[in-house]
């Protein structure tokens, strides 16, 4: 068995509260010992990692990725997408269901999770909240949950019909998983390709309003309240990729009220604004779009004050020919797995003074909790040996030509990063070495 010793590192484990030097022994895919420095000097292992000067943290967890398999493997595959995840320090990813065909059945869920797909890190999935993600009839949540579903979503599309969204929240509450909602009132965003505002006006592009996002978030929060009151259930709403100050405020208030709402923010939404579109750069086109500076600042405020539960990438690979189109015709989305940690450390830790342990918590412990990943997102004896080892002081620039993803659609080519992954370990296997 490929046992691994990690010596001399700074263990940062938000769940146990440890932020200090520790040595770790990994065996049979689990953490078997965590000792004070020198405590494992007689232990033997096939691989030993000298982590002096490095942070040793729980492997990162991304609750929002698009791996494009089945159906669109020219953009990405489960194997390449999870290889990119490993390079970014992620050991668990949650695949969205907008594959071709849509992942809305036990058969497709099992097919995705089959070892033959070649996932490099642990692959979880949120199947579709409704059949075909058509927003009409909810899928079989019990059956899918038993097959491993960690939540349900029609990501890319919202569940627009209030009646259907209510049914989804009630059904998911019964089995203790979240409904993850892409909050966009698509009745208000037809023909839109970026954020509404002065930049959109200048570029002559139709803009998505703040209301289009906020109204769905506000409606869904109203549904949580209504279901708690009338059905005696406690549904869990997870709001995907929050991008507007108004939606953030609604979530903050709902949390104070005690409703079970969680949310994620993507690195691009706390790093860039719609100015990054520049001269119609389709690699700065995604949905929700890059917003105004006030919204970006509100994302950071939400991350700092605890309103935001996790950072998620919304890794959305697209082929070059698809992005080499007129801005309005190019598909939405950017890759993000390999740039998330570097951006979070640069913008949140170095820029805003967020402690590293808090960055780790937002990228491991808390996302793991949202989708109830037992034994992941934490490092203690008995937990899965999912780890990332990174140099927290390394300043570097991301180079897209070195990406593990099949696609290169990122606005961060050449962008400065802080913190470099030197090793990623998934269930005791070293899956990436930097």
């Amino acid at each position, binding site marked *: 068995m490929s046992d691994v010793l990690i010596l001399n590192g700074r263990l940062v484990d938000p769940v146990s509260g440890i932020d200090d030097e520790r040595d770790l022994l990994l065996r049979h895919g689990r953490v078997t010992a965590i000792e004070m420095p020198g405590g494992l000097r007689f232990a033997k292992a096939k691989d030993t990692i000298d982590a002096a000067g490095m942070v040793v943290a729980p492997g990162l967890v991304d609750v929002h990725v698009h791996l494009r398999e089945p159906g669109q493997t020219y953009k990405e595959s489960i194997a390449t997408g999870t290889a990119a995840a490993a390079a970014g320090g992620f050991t668990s990813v949650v695949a969205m269901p907008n594959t071709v065909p849509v992942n809305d059945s036990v058969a497709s869920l099992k097919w995705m999770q089959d070892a033959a797909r070649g996932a490099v890190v642990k692959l979880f999935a949120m199947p579709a909240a409704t059949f075909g993600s058509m927003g009409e009839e909810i899928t079989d949540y019990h059956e899918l949950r038993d097959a491993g579903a960690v939540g349900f979503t029609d990501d890319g599309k919202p569940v627009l019909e209030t009646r259907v969204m209510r049914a989804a929240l009630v059904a998911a509450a019964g089995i203790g998983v979240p409904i993850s909602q892409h909050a966009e009132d698509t009745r208000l965003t037809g023909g839109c390709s970026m954020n509404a505002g002065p*930049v959109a006006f*200048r570029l002559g592009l139709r803009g998505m309003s703040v209301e289009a996002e906020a109204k769905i978030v506000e409606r869904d929060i109203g549904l949580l309240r209504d279901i708690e009151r009338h059905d005696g259930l406690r549904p869990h709403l997870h709001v995907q990729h929050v991008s507007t100050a108004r939606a953030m405020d609604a979530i903050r208030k709902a949390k104070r009220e005690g409703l079970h709402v969680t949310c994620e923010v993507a690195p691009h939404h706390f790093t860039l604004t719609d100015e990054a579109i520049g*001269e119609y750069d389709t690699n700065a086109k995604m949905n929700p779009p890059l917003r105004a500076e006030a919204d970006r600042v509100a994302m950071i405020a939400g991350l700092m004050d605890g309103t935001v539960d996790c950072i998620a990438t919304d890794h959305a690979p697209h082929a070059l020919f698809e992005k*080499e189109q007129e801005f309005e015709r190019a598909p939405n989305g950017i890759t993000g797995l390999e740039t998330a940690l570097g951006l979070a450390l640069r913008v949140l830790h170095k820029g805003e003074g967020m402690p590293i342990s808090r960055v780790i918590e937002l990228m491991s412990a808390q996302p793991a909790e949202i989708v109830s990943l037992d034994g992941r997102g934490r490092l203690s004896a008995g937990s899965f040996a999912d780890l990332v080892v990174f140099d927290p002081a390394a300043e570097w620039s991301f180079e897209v030509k070195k990406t593990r993803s099949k696609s290169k659609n990122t606005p961060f080519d050449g962008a400065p990063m802080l913190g470099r992954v030197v090793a990623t370990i998934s269930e005791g296997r070293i899956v990436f070495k930097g």
Partner: protein
Amino acid sequence: MKKSEYAGGSLLTVADLTVDEVAAILAAAGSLETMHPVERARMLAGRRVALLFYESSTRTRTSFELAAKSLGATTTLVSDKSSSIEKGESLKDTGLTLRALGAECIILRHPNSGAPYLLAKSTGLPVLNAGDGMHEHPSQALLDARTMLTRLPGIPAGRVHAKTLEGVTVVITGDILHSRVARSNAMLLPRLGARVLLCGPVPLLPEHALGLGSGVEIERDFDKALKRAGSSGKGVVMMLRIQRERVVGLELDLADYIARYQLNEERLAACAPNALVMHPGPMIRGLEIAGEVADGPNSAIEDQVRHGLFIRMALLVRALGAGEFESVTV
């Protein structure tokens, strides 16, 4: 994307032009106008220009085509109907095909904002933006500037500079939101010293329009805007068509719109009797503009079309590096 990624001589947005470059284009248009036709026909003799039109057009297409032909260039027209574009060929591949066939410059009209950037980047050829979606129509703004320079009283002679249009108030009225002409003019004219007043109802003129730059204001009351233009002594009123083809889900009471925003004889006489009346066309008589005004003594509408020819000649000479553009940095 940096400007340097595009071939010199491209014109994608008026924002890329320095005031000095604007002056050089206007000066070149002037000398091309007075040049003997035989001499003119030697300017681009043997050069190849492609017109790539994804949208219908009367004025701009004919104007660019005649401009190229009178300079001696060979032109070819490719339109989205009756070409492989109908079969799904991308803009990039269409551009590369035209380049392989020997096109040295592409004039592009396209319904998507920003399409000229994509074409210029993928082909490396000089691209002239002949109107892209709701974004820009740079040659129109240049020909509008030339029309003002020749028709307004008291414009200083000589090379154009940052104060040439000082004291000029230009009211642009109507469907600003969907108008690439409005954007190009609102970004160009203030840099020559003019004040631009945008006028229209909120659904057609969002407050975000103020972000176009300094020297641009919003005045929603058309009579007030006209009076400001009228009292300046050098007033211009530019009327825009409501672009039904781009209006999405907008409820507009046309009778109310006409009452508030139509330029008719009574309104012009009462508010700005000496103002120059302009319209980029196509115009809908009886809607945004009364026929009597379009045909009246203040109208410069046909001048605009005529000046367009020389502006486009100048842009082609610049794009193909064939003329006296010593002061142009490309």
